[in-house]
């Protein structure tokens, strides 16, 4: 029953937080349910790695709807991991927002429902159902984006909703065309596995059309470049723990749906999925790398870096070698853990300084050593500095690209990654170590804490520490079970 329990747990938690039982109850429930899910999902992932199918998935009544393979297990694991650290981070962060108890309950109910909607994406086997769940993620996260209820937050939420739903409409038509194609190819069941089986007999034009419609439609939610305009707004205006969820795992779990299509489209003669992925991916990386140089808001900085990393993953898939597929999986993992850490660090900086403006934050390391150190560590990690996780996966992708003989694409990717590195580091470096003009801290906004000796809440420090561990460890050592899981996941997107 493990998968069903995993899906039910956040719903139960969302109901439980509605009970007004004191201040500690509400965040406590969220943390416990996320932690419980992390344990259950780790167990599930271990079973998948060892090649055992969980008992309930053997029954045909369930296996028609719910399927867990390596790729699903990997995405589930990331959702649970980031969900847990963000839940811990929320405890202290939301306590500083001076919310009414009702508003706090609303936050946590939405948080749990959002986690549920993301967990449902990788386990559902039927594409139309997945589409409905993707729609649900928009529904559950929109109110989290607009949570601060300021003019900017509402604008960001509005753009997010309109563009996501627009994309959903296009993707819906794509899924219907895909069904028609699989029907024409004699496919019996409209599931991910059934599509792969029917693929060789499917007509090329509808499959290609469906792929493009879904790539554009869901690519909007992933933040691929021509459709990315909402992302920096929504990912910067939401409360920081929510930003970690949006940037760290929501984009990834939507990208998962696109990745599922690759084995199908590649099996159809005459449909070119790789080229589209490569082109769209490189455009995303390039645009984001240059936009990074001129941001004024440090949460937007990390949001643009999400666009960049989504582009890198798509490019890696587009390179089309099994080594680059593995690199893409590694990049998915590393991006999730690193980006969530970055937003925790950005949230800490926001708590300390009370402003999101890069120009207004100077010498952060002197005002709050923890926030300053976290921010510089996050900046180094996300831009791909050597001993840390992202360096390893970016290096793997570039190496795979060169071995594959894709010199132009790999060269461009390398240039963009370097540009992004300098863009991020220039901003972060100035914020953390820069001299304060006239010796006094610039204070444009009346921040919640102007005192010099501001201490971050314990739970924020704990979450920063917990989130930093995988960033450090995965840079030097990838445990064997995780390596096996990523290999399985890479196999799921390879033809």
């Amino acid at each position: 029953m493990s998968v069903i329990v995993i899906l039910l747990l956040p719903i139960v938690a969302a109901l439980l937080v509605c009970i007004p039982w004191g201040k500690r109850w509400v965040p406590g429930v969220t943390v416990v349910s996320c932690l419980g899910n992390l344990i259950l999902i780790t167990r599930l992932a271990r079973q998948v790695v060892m090649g055992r199918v969980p008992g309930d998935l053997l029954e045909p009544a369930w296996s028609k709807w719910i399927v867990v393979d390596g790729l699903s297990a990997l995405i589930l694991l990331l959702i649970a991991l980031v969900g847990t650290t963000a839940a811990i981070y929320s405890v202290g962060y939301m306590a500083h927002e001076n919310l009414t108890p009702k508003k706090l309950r609303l936050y946590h109910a939405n948080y749990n429902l959002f986690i549920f909607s993301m967990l449902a994406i990788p386990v559902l086997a039927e594409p139309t159902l997945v589409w409905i769940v993707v729609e649900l993620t928009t529904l559950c996260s929109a109110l989290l984006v607009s949570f601060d209820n300021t003019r900017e937050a509402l604008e960001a939420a509005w753009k997010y909703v309109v563009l996501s739903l627009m994309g959903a409409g296009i993707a819906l038509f794509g899924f219907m065309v895909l069904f028609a194609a699989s029907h024409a190819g004699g496919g019996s069941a409209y599931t991910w596995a059934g599509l792969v089986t029917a693929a060789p007999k499917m007509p090329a034009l509808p499959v290609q059309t469906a792929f493009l419609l879904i790539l554009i439609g869901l690519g909007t939610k992933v933040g691929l470049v021509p459709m990315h305009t909402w992302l920096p707004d929504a990912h910067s205006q939401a409360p920081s723990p929510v930003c970690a969820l949006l940037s760290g795992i929501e984009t990834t779990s939507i990208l998962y749906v696109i990745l599922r299509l690759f084995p199908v489209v590649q099996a159809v003669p005459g449909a070119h999925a790789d080229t589209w992925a490569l082109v769209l991916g490189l455009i995303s990386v390039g645009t984001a790398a240059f936009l990074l140089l001129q941001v004024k808001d440090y949460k937007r900085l990390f949001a643009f870096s999400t666009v960049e990393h989504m582009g890198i993953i798509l490019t890696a898939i587009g390179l089309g070698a099994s080594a680059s597929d593995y690199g893409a999986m590694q990049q998915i993992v590393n991006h999730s853990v690193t980006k969530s850490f970055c937003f925790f660090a950005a949230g800490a900086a926001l708590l300390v300084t009370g402003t999101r403006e890069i120009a207004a934050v100077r010498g952060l390391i002197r005002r709050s050593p923890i926030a300053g150190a976290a921010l510089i560590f996050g900046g180094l990690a996300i831009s791909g500095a050597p001993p840390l996780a992202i360096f390893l996966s970016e290096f793997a992708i570039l190496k795979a690209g060169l071995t594959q003989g894709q010199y132009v694409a790999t060269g461009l990717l390398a240039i963009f990654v370097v540009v992004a590195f300098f863009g991020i580091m220039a901003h972060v470096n100035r914020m953390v170590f820069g001299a304060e003009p006239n010796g006094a801290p610039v204070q444009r906004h009346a921040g919640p804490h102007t005192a010099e000796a501001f201490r971050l809440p314990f739970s924020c420090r704990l979450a920063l520490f917990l989130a930093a561990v995988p960033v450090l460890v995965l840079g030097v050592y990838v445990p064997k079970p995780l390596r096996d899981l990523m290999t399985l996941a890479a196999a799921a997107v390879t033809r």
Partner: protein
Amino acid sequence: MNDAAKQLLQNLNALASGLFLLTAFGIVAMRQARACLNLFIVQSLLLAASAALLGWRYGSDHLYGVALVNLISKPVIVPWLLRKTSPAEIYARREIDQVLNIPTALLIALALAVVAYFVGIPLANAVGPEFRGPNVPIGIAVLLIGAFTLTVRREALSLLIGLLVMENGAFLAGISIARDLGMLVELAVATDGLVIVFIMGVLVRAVQKQTGSTAVGALASLKETSAASNADEALP
């Protein structure tokens, strides 16, 4: 069913689809938010009619289901939910500062319909010879016109209807080629409109409280050049 009856059903379906496209043009041409909503309801009824006719023609129970769900959700529940969630003011609004004037917008919509024809016909033929009805090209045309409406409008209700029109177009094209998809299409039809209306209604209410206006499309303070300092500016 004899051939004459089949032919009649197909012709009726073509009529419903044609009127469906016409309502999309009407929505592009209307400034009054209320009129857009009424046209959208007519359009949803036509979608239901097309689904029912195709269901009859091909003997598919699921298409009857789609028709039924459409009849309940869009003309009844959508306006009801809209009244529940969003401020009454949105009905009374007019588009004042459209990006394009109406004749230009109509011309572009016409161009989109032509494009959709040239995209839709080969697509329908590639899926199978029996899909040569008007549904696929018209559905794509309405999908594109809906997306186009979204880019030129500023008022909350017009934007919302633009989205719903896009979904209607996707369904009109989808039900003709994916009529065996089964119960999930009904489920998608049912959830989709409600999700859109609910979440956008709630947001519009919050925006109206915050800024005193429902011209949500006019919100444009989040840009690279002017970062967080915007928060200090007085509301207009």
